[in-house]
């Protein structure tokens, strides 16, 4: 009986390792195999290549710096001051996660635009253009800020308050406390955040695609997209490998320095008490930041219902009508299908993998764990390119399942780690008790573990769903031939200069994701109330 169940567990582990090799490692390796000397020569000799590298690095570096600093300020405001409305502020700070990166760029266009085409420029009579470098930086900051904020805030929240108490007793001034205690504590987190955000920005094509100009040129991600569209897989592969470099570096650094202070013993929380000055500063900072996040979203939301934006703001449903006439309902259906499939399959797969690497350890547990988190080092665009090359001649290519699979793998690491964390916190002897009571492992999983981890399961499903709804990276290379998701309609509408349509689609995605997140929050509150 025991030997048999051990064999079953080993078989499942082997199957999962083979599965991850097939859907993560092999597609990436197939990119390497498509690289040819001719492809490299063509790319290197292209006049766009070097400017694209410079553009990618300069915009990503600038945006990463701004994003990380803003996130540090926001995390401080919410965790170290006793301002009111922290819930509202933190919801607003993560709101940009619910829409595609291209929607942020589009929001900036609607807000400022070029030469008075944005509502703000029109109202204030400004002649400023958001296109090019400033817009790409601003859009990238909006897109990456929530991730930076969540990474820093979650670590600040668990800092031990004892060193601060001791420093206070010793009369060490606040600035010295910050440089002597807080910064060393946050050092590793800030490094991780910087690399994660840089990778996120440098591999994104949504913002530069919408805001680049002829004089600015391209970024690496746009060049890669163009190469794939023109079936130049050799040079697309080279860019793919280049884009892998920061992602792999971020992954490796994170793996080595991952303690983030969270594993340390917290004798007392730092506390949120502060002086009036700090409170006012926190209100002003959080308020301005919220406005900066909301304004672009508000701008495209206004555009949806404006007759002729920005000159005639009289109310109309015509953009919504037009958007649905051009097939938005069909695209929405596709997106919902992709999102539901990724949520169901991703959640089940993440639970199974996490269970086998935490509570049913054995041979291959370690490789399975590494494979499960490897996807975080593969940018969506690179994964998409790998899938195009690797699955090209398989029956999966062009089906909804391949896109659902790509989304699952692309967003797999975070939900997997969430479940690993949850399972590690649960009593390690539950299965042993089951064994001595004659209750099998599977029954313990279904009767005891699954009810206990239900909140995490919902959180994981929502994460897969929301991200699948808003992603434009891997899907942009796989659809077509697979049915187009709603998010790709934004780029399409934009290229056809149908800005009302692009705005409507952005708002539609935001509404669906907000509804799902809202339902989740409501369910969580009800569950907490039921538990007393």
């Amino acid at each position, binding site marked *: 009986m025991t030997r048999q169940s051990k064999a079953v567990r080993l078989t499942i582990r082997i199957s999962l390792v083979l599965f991850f090799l097939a859907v993560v490692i092999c597609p990436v390796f197939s990119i390497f195999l498509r690289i040819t000397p001719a492809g490299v020569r063509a790319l290197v000799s292209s006049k766009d290549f070097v400017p694209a590298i410079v553009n990618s690095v300069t915009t990503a570096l600038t945006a990463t710096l701004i994003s990380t600093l803003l996130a540090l300020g926001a995390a401080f405001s919410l965790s170290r001051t006793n301002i009111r409305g922290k819930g509202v502020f933190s919801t607003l700070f993560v709101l940009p996660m619910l829409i595609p990166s291209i929607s942020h760029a589009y929001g900036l266009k609607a807000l400022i635009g070029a030469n008075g085409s944005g509502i703000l420029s029109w109202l204030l009579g400004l002649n400023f253009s958001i296109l090019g470098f400033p817009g790409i930086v601003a859009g990238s900051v909006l897109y990456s800020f929530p991730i930076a904020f969540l990474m820093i805030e979650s670590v600040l929240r668990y800092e031990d308050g004892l060193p601060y108490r001791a420093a206070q007793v010793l009369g060490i001034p606040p600035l010295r406390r910050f440089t002597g205690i807080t910064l060393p504590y946050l050092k590793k987190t800030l490094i991780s955040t910087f690399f994660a955000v840089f990778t996120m920005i440098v591999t994104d094509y949504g913002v530069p695609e919408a805001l680049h100009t002829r004089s600015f040129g391209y970024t690496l991600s746009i060049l890669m997209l163009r190469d794939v569209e023109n079936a130049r897989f050799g040079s697309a592969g080279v860019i793919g490998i280049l884009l892998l470099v920061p992602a792999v570096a971020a992954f490796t650094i994170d793996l080595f320095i991952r303690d983030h202070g969270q594993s340390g013993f917290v004798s007392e929380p730092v506390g949120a008490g502060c002086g009036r000055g700090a409170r006012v500063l926190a209100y002003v900072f959080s308020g301005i930041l919220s406005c900066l996040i909301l304004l672009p979203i508000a701008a495209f939301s206004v555009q949806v219902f404006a007759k002729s934006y920005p000159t005639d703001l009289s109310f109309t449903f015509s953009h919504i009508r037009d958007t649905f006439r051009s097939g938005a309902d069909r695209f929405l259906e596709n997106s919902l299908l992709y999102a539901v499939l990724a949520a169901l399959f991703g959640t089940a797969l993440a639970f199974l993998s996490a269970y086998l690497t935490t509570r049913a350890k054995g041979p291959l547990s370690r490789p399975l764990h590494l494979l499960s988190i490897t996807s975080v080092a593969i940018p969506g665009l690179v994964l998409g390119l790998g899938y195009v090359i690797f699955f090209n001649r398989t029956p999966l290519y062009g089906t909804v399942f391949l896109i659902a699979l790509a989304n699952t793998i692309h967003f797999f690491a975070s939900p997997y780690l969430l479940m690993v964390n949850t399972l590690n916190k649960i009593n390690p002897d539950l299965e042993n008790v089951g*064994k001595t009571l004659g209750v099998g492992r599977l029954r313990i999983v279904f009767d005891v573990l699954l009810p206990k981890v239900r909140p995490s399961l919902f959180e994981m499903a929502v994460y897969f769903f929301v991200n699948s709804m808003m992603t434009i990276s891997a899907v942009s290379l796989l659809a077509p031939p697979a049915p187009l998701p709603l998010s790709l309609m934004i780029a399409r509408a934009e290229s056809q200069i149908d800005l009302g349509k692009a705005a409507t689609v952005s708002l539609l995605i935001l509404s669906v994701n907000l509804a799902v997140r809202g339902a989740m929050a409501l369910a969580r509150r009800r569950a907490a109330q039921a538990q007393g």
Partner: protein
Amino acid sequence: MGSLKDKLVVRDLSKGYREKEVLTSVSFTVRDGEFLSILGPSGCGKTTLLRLLVGLLTPETGTIEKDGVDITFAPPDRRGMGIVFQNYALFENMSVQKNVEYALKIKKGTRMIARERAGEMLAAVGLSDYAKAMPGKLSGGQQQRVAIARTLALRPDVILFDEPMSALDVATRLSMRCELKRLQKTFGTTMIYVTHDQEEAFALSDRIMILDRGEIAQLDTPENVCKNPANDYVRSFVLDNLRAKIESLSAFAEGLSV
């Protein structure tokens, strides 16, 4: 102590992890109805021995016999043994009653009597009034009783305890000691109790096994362990504890006189 019949006979039991031997050729017998404590510092092999006995681990060498039957490789649920873990390992999503009747409902022979038996066990540990409560709402001592009732419900003739009182406060520990002795008398169960608390071991046990780095240093009655320690290790182990107790008592007495 009950009859003098051997309940468990352990011969040459060894177990190692990654080439490091944790338990080396351990042999002993446990008598029917006996209360045996296994005592020793952290890392001496106490918990490993307990897990080997209950079948959660398999030994590298040696045999375990229960009532004359070799159970060395029998699955844990076919050994007629129960175990109470240090952290209780209760099913937190189930009420107290459901925790106790869960295994009974799954087993074929006990499905029909599950509810009734669970009620009896809860009465035996004094928790009838808490049948519908969720484990998270109970105190540490009460949770401990639920874990004991859950184990007793399957009527094992040997119960193993893995440092079950280490998370309880002093007052609750004292009352749980009496409770355990009472339950042992009521059900006539053989009990093997792992602890690093000497006072607990001396107060509860018919015999004490002192482990030193995976080997039995002495297995004897509490009185003999005190009076005739088998070697220097046992002597210093027992005396150190006594000395510490005396020192803390005299410090306490000094504090009172001041």
